[in-house]
């Protein structure tokens, strides 16, 4: 059986001066999307970064096992700190394409433009020539997604990948991820504070609190009938929004 894109995290421990992640275990099957939810400081981002082997300075993996089958790429929460402020964004994407595909610079430029279009950036050719600070927050977030896809990953780690997007563009980007899963069996580990988005994207969800797994299960079950009080409090914290009155304008 092809296991490309699978992930096993077993009893992961991450520490700074004190232990921050206390034995988290989770799995992602090839082509599966798994969500991680939990409040600030629950260890969501640290878990993702530990999988990538990119923990912040002063923080290290202090125990457990991480096994990725294939290539993993990550979309970080803060685009600015992962883009080179002095290079045009198109060139940054092309460089990653060239490294990943070992292609000619010219082919890499073409591929970069394709990727920038695929992440729903309007006027991609124009935006490609700009520097990161000349883009809006949501445009930078999509460049980051293009950078991750340029690595041709088997597993995509997403840390709040759509927070800077309006909901219509968000929907398009989530559709793109769904398409990549269908076409390429891309596996996804998806951190988000938005439970509705997680339920849309993921089959399974892991709820973290204080660096521990408090609940895990089918995404729909977890949000509709949470097993723990903590998960219930997360669901209850979702702000209500009325549905606009049906059809036509008045």
């Amino acid at each position, binding site marked *: 059986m092809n296991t490309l894109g699978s992930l096993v995290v077993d009893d992961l421990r991450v520490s700074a001066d004190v232990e921050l992640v206390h034995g988290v275990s989770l799995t992602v099957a090839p082509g599966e999307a798994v969500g991680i939810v939990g409040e600030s400081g629950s260890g969501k981002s640290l878990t993702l970064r530990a999988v990538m082997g990119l923990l912040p300075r002063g923080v290290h993996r202090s125990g457990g096992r991480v096994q990725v089958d294939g290539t993993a790429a990550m979309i970080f929460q803060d685009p600015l700190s992962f883009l080179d402020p002095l290079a045009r964004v198109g060139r940054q994407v092309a460089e990653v394409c060239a490294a990943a595909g070992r292609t000619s610079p010219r082919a890499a430029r073409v591929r970069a433009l394709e990727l920038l279009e695929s992440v729903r950036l309007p006027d991609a050719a124009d935006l490609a020539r700009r520097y990161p600070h000349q883009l809006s927050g949501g445009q930078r977030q999509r460049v980051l997604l293009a950078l991750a896809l340029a690595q041709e990953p088997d597993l995509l780690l997403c840390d709040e990948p759509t927070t800077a997007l*309006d909901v219509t*563009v968000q929907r398009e980007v989530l559709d793109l991820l769904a398409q990549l899963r269908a076409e390429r069996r891309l596996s996804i580990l998806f951190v988000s504070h938005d439970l509705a988005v997680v339920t849309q994207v993921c089959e399974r969800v892991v709820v973290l609190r204080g660096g521990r797994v408090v609940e895990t299960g089918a995404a729909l079950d977890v949000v509709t009938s949470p097993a723990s009080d903590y998960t219930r409090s997360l669901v209850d914290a979702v*702000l209500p929004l009325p549905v606009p009155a049906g059809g036509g304008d008045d």
Partner: protein
Amino acid sequence: MTEPTARPDGYPGSPPARPAGPGASAGPTLGGLEVVEASVAFAGHRVVDRVSLAIRPGTILGLVGESGSGKTTLARAIVGSVALAGGSIRLDGSDLGRRRSSAERRAVQLVQQDPFASLNPLLTVGQVLDDLLREERLTSATEPGGRRPRLARQQRAADLLALVGLPSDALGRYPREFSGGQRQLIAIARALAVQPRVLVADEPTSSLDVSVQRTVLDVIAGLGRGMHLATLLISHDLSVVHAVCDEVAVMRDGVLLELAPAGRFFRHPGHPYSRALLEAVPRLPGR
């Protein structure tokens, strides 16, 4: 902690009387912030195109719309960090040019998405606030043009933290010692330290978790209303806008498509794009 703000349905009643603050000047208009036919261009391309809106003191306008539509650029024009290619920005009826006096700059404060980027990591919270309070010329009748003595500044700094719901021992700590949500509260305290009239919050909660988002929003909404600020809240989170805003403005491609009282906007969006936005909001099953 501040009172959780109830969602005012539709338009609020008559605005409360506003206290005189720095930068206040009597004008013939309603008071508050007015953006009149404002345009901003980058390299000859208009990214904000003749946008007009007004925010009365004590009310909150939510600005939503397409990513890249010019919301942040409009915010920057309002705080004076980018120049207008046309139109004007007015505070209480008087024009705020590009070259603003220090009182005018203090009057319009920006809270950004990433509070870490906007806080100097080398200064304690107390030092940040003290520097601001030290610059401030007192406008009170008893000490016109005077400065606050040290002890009074310390007291005021502690009061500001209390306003946003942080303990006064936060004064001696550095930005890195706080969570994202707390840092955002600190950024708000800093914005309020200079007694602004206008508060512009550009996606102030989009990098925070739901649990903390609430607190930060309650603080912005509660203090914005309580201190009679004209508040502009930019967000992609429509449920957030629904929870705290009196009016909603929608932008796409640099243009303002719709401006409506929140109650009406969420029930009967006036523009097809507004409706498309509301219908694209991901919802929990069964809600």
